[in-house]
């Protein structure tokens, strides 16, 4: 997934030091536009990451059916691609602006800073979960039992050795983020094709160890397994695990460089290679441990141990790099977000703050082990903002509400946006917490409600303004 922020690091920018360097406050000129080939590799690399090592096995732990994994993931990822193609890419090519600059025109600079902070915090928790994933690759390098690995029901650190592993890995990631985002972006680029093949290799070895090529039968949970995620749940998870990027419009910042909206199809490389294939390959790893070693699937097995058992050191390197290339730009970006909120601090200080928060999150396995829920909540909080952009772009003129209202009025804080964003999110979080609604069901209704509320509030505001003038 993305869950991922690997190539959006420049987008968080609210600092003046990078203003103008990536057309952050202007339309991308025609001379800078790229053909579709520029995006296929990017999406493939961005969505083949450390999260995949967790999500695949978590599906198994949640009792996902073979039909859900084979067909549900196919459908959900297809819906994600269609969203990127027909919503995100269309707006991106029309506006040619970053998400942040477009939001600034609608919501005002101060409100965008709040969005930035929310984004930064959520990214810190996501990066923390990637530190957790990478740390599981350290355990097999030491004598057995020296570092106790967390299981799926772990929420607290497993011991001092685990804490030390997370701190070392997180500190290394933070130091690299301080040096610059470019090196890690390059590493991610180089690692992508190799990483995808390691996922495939894990699946092939697993099938060999189980002496079966019947993937359908292997992915079918044993009788009596509690099914905590339905076919529909899998569809919605795979559709909205990157809600912040497509419906949430974060990928405006990437696709604004596309010559045509058809570049949105490039997301298919990420969805079908990085998500669909990688998730199923990772799921098979846990299937092997359940069938061959009799472990409790609800407790699972850490990615490092499973991958080491399957493909050895190459797999451990893959787990570390996969977590690293996801976490590093996230730490960098979160640092920029914090700097935007606290203009007096340096980027170094802001990045260290972000790194510390990521390390703290990584030490507690709760985020990684609850990734299926966390990803849904992440989308629920951030996706509604994209609905406001959709209303502004497609419907504002037809519905008689102002386009880019903050820009035209000179406002730095559009209260309508804040209310339209927070009210549906609050209701959604209530439904999740109190009524145990699966988190991935929430981004879509939240976004729709946000868009409708924004229209309603904007209509009322413009009506009051017109009345005041007469």
């Amino acid at each position, binding site marked *: 997934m993305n869950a991922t922020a690997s190539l959006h690091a420049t987008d968080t920018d609210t600092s003046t030091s990078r203003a103008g360097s990536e057309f952050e406050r202007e339309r991308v000129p025609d001379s800078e536009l790229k053909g579709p080939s*520029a995006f296929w590799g990017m999406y493939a690399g961005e969505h083949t990451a450390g999260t995949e090592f967790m999500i695949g096995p978590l599906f198994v732990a949640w009792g996902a059916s073979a039909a859900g994994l084979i067909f549900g993931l196919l459908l959900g990822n297809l819906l994600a691609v269609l969203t990127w193609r027909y919503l995100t890419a269309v707006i991106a090519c029309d506006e040619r602006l970053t998400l942040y600059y477009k939001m600034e025109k609608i919501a005002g600079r101060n409100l965008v800073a709040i969005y930035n902070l929310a984004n930064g915090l959520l990214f810190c928790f996501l990066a923390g979960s990637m530190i957790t994933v990478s740390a599981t690759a350290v355990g097999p390098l030491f004598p057995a039992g020296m570092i106790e690995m967390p299981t799926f029901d772990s929420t607290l650190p497993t011991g001092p050795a685990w804490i030390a592993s997370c701190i070392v890995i997180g500190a290394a990631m933070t130091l690299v983020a301080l040096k610059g985002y470019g090196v890690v*972006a*390059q590493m991610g*680029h*180089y*690692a992508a*094709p*190799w990483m995808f*093949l*390691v996922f*495939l*290799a*894990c699946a*092939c*070895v697993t*099938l*060999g*160890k189980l002496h079966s*090529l019947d993937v359908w039968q292997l992915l079918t949970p044993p009788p009596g397994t509690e099914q905590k995620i339905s076919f529909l749940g899998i569809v919605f998870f795979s559709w909205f695990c990157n809600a912040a990027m497509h419906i949430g419009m974060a990928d405006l910042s990437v696709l604004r460089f596309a010559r045509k909206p058809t570049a949105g199809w490039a997301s298919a490389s990420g969805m079908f290679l990085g998500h669909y294939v990688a998730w199923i390959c990772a799921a098979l790893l846990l299937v092997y441990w359940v069938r061959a070693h009799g472990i409790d699937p609800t407790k699972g097995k850490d990615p490092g141990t499973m991958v080491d058992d399957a*493909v*050895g*050191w*190459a*797999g451990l*390197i*893959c787990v570390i790099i996969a977590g690293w290339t996801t976490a590093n730009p996230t730490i960098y970006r979160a640092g920029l977000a914090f700097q935007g909120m606290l203009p007096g601090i340096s980027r170094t200080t802001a990045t260290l703050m972000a790194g510390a928060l990521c390390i703290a999150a990584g030490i507690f396995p709760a985020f990684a082990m609850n990734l299926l829920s966390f990803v849904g909540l992440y989308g629920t909080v951030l996706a509604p903002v994209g609905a406001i952009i959709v209303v502004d772009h497609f419907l504002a003129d037809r519905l008689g509400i102002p386009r880019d209202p903050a820009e035209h009025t000179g406002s730095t804080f559009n209260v309508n946006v804040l209310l339209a964003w927070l009210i549906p999110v609050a209701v959604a979080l209530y439904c999740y917490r109190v009524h145990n609604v699966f988190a991935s069901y929430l981004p879509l209704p939240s976004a729709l409600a946000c868009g409708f509320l924004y229209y309603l509030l904007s209509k009322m505001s413009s009506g009051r303004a017109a009345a005041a003038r007469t």
Partner: protein
Amino acid sequence: MRTIATCLGLAALAGTIVPAVLFMLHAVPLDAVKSIMLLSTIVWFAVAPFWMKVT
């Protein structure tokens, strides 16, 4: 130079997946798979910067 990097890169990628496929078909032992994959990983990261342009 780029031609050599391309050839080595392709060999490294092949070395990452082919042994696993052969293991799946019970043609090679797992230890060989792990060793070849590790070697291929090292070769890949050595040659990838010369082969893959980053834009």
